[in-house]
């Protein structure tokens, strides 16, 4: 008897990968709203919140990025545009990291750059997560 092994390519992300990726979304969004609160109230605690939310988001997004790179290595031969999602996630992470450094400045020195970056990175993570979870933009099978 012969066994016919069919190499399969999962169409959806691993649940752990999904959790890590999705987890970064509310953290980056929370940082953005905290920055909005600080910039309108000058209450310092909001910028402390933003700093930790960004740190948490970078942890989640960083682990998701590792999963994404592994996924890309496994599927790049099958899908023409498999690189788009990991690349977007990498860009998101780098911008998020720069934002973390900006948030390490004292008091109002984080502003307005910190808020601008928080908005950009919040949009980036939403788009990236959508593309990653739905698997759209991968392109057709080669």
């Amino acid at each position, binding site marked *: 008897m012969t066994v016919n092994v069919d190499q399969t390519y999962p169409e959806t992300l691993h649940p752990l990968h999904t959790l890590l990726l999705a987890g970064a979304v509310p953290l980056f969004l929370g940082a953005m709203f905290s920055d909005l609160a600080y910039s309108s109230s000058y209450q310092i605690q909001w910028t402390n919140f933003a700093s930790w939310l960004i740190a948490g988001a970078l942890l989640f997004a960083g682990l998701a990025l590792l999963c994404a790179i592994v996924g890309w290595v496994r599927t790049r031969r099958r899908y023409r545009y498999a690189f788009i999602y990991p690349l977007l996630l990498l860009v998101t992470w780098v911008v998020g990291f720069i934002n*973390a*450094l900006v948030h390490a400045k004292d008091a109002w020195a984080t502003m307005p750059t910190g808020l601008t970056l928080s908005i950009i990175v919040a949009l980036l993570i939403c788009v990236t997560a959508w593309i990653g979870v739905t698997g759209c933009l991968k392109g057709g099978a080669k």
Partner: protein
Amino acid sequence: MKTLNLCAIFCVSAALLAGCSREDATPNQYGSDIRLPAPERGLLPNMTIAKPAAWGDRVPTVPEGFTISAIATNLNIPRQTLVLPNGDILVAEGRGGGAAKLKPKDVIAGYIKAKGNTTVKSGNSLTLLRDKDGDGVYEDRSIFAEDLNAPYGLALVGSNLYVANQDALVRFDYQEGQISANGAPQKILDLPSAINHHWTKALTASEDGRYLYVAIGSNSNITERGMDAEVNRAQVWQIDAQTGAYKPYATGLRNPTALAIQPGTGVLWVVVNERDELGPNLVPDYLTSVKEGGFYGWPWAYWGKNVDPRVRPENPSKVAESLTPDYSLGSHVAALGVTFSSDVMGPKFANGVFVGEHGSWNRANPVGYRVSFIPFADGRPNGQPIDFVSGFRGEDGKTRGRPVGVTLDPRGALIVADDLANTIWRVVRKP
């Protein structure tokens, strides 16, 4: 020095947003007429942290005609000293603070900065040193008082020995010749101690002994712990020694780390550590006479009316009233001690103040790490600082000591507390 030039690592990403300025020349920033550069801050602050090493056979460098010796070692973080009338020396030992870490940055920066300091546990005590036969060797040593809370400022008025702990001003009875306190001290009043980001409480007494002056540092670098944390901070208080009644004597002094009364005039002088993270050549630490009711800028302004953009809400009226200090000691030198000199130090060093400079962290090229002498003329600083005790940072890049308190011994010596080597140094003129 261990150069933690983290900026180099991140410059690629940093360049996306802001250039990493590497300009770190040390301009002449001494005196009253100084030029200040524009504020700058890359994505990471400049950090060069001292790399501690033991003195071994070495000693700090002193000018010709002077000698230096260690009169006490293995102390538990000596900060300020007091020379008693019989020549005994009291040493306040301790480490205070412990402010909560509010941001990831505090965790990381706190870890890095701690590498440049001693790892010894806080002594929380006063040690008494005695030279029995006047040969300059302090052979007797006793614990004068213990179980204090990070004692720092010391002052003797008659038979009252005042000690400024990080949370309270207390008083001991003192009789000449005593080697240990009679008992627990009596509290004069509580001092602001919530958070205690800058925990040191410097202390001095007016010439007539009626008033005590206590210096209270700010609770942040530049309000990053919130404005509410800064109530009663960055001030010098005047306290009635009899009643404990107090009032802010001067405000806006970010971190006033040492006080001294000018002999003859009775004027109060202070050294102040200014704010970080505005670049290698901002903001100058300073020495100034303290004007009663004066406001010296922190947090809204620095060196007079230069606005600090990091403070919100803004306060233009406070900026407008901000006084310019008398004398810039240079940015980031971290002055932690000041004492007026006298004729006993010889003609070259008779008229002026000695300043203990703990040394910088927020600069690629370190500055400070010395005791400087600022010459005076007509009761005011006049001229460039002179190295009086140096060599704390060796040419091998290691740091062997960091000066804190400096005290003139009227018998003809300068006493220097070193909180890295946990040593007391004594500088005397050669006979």
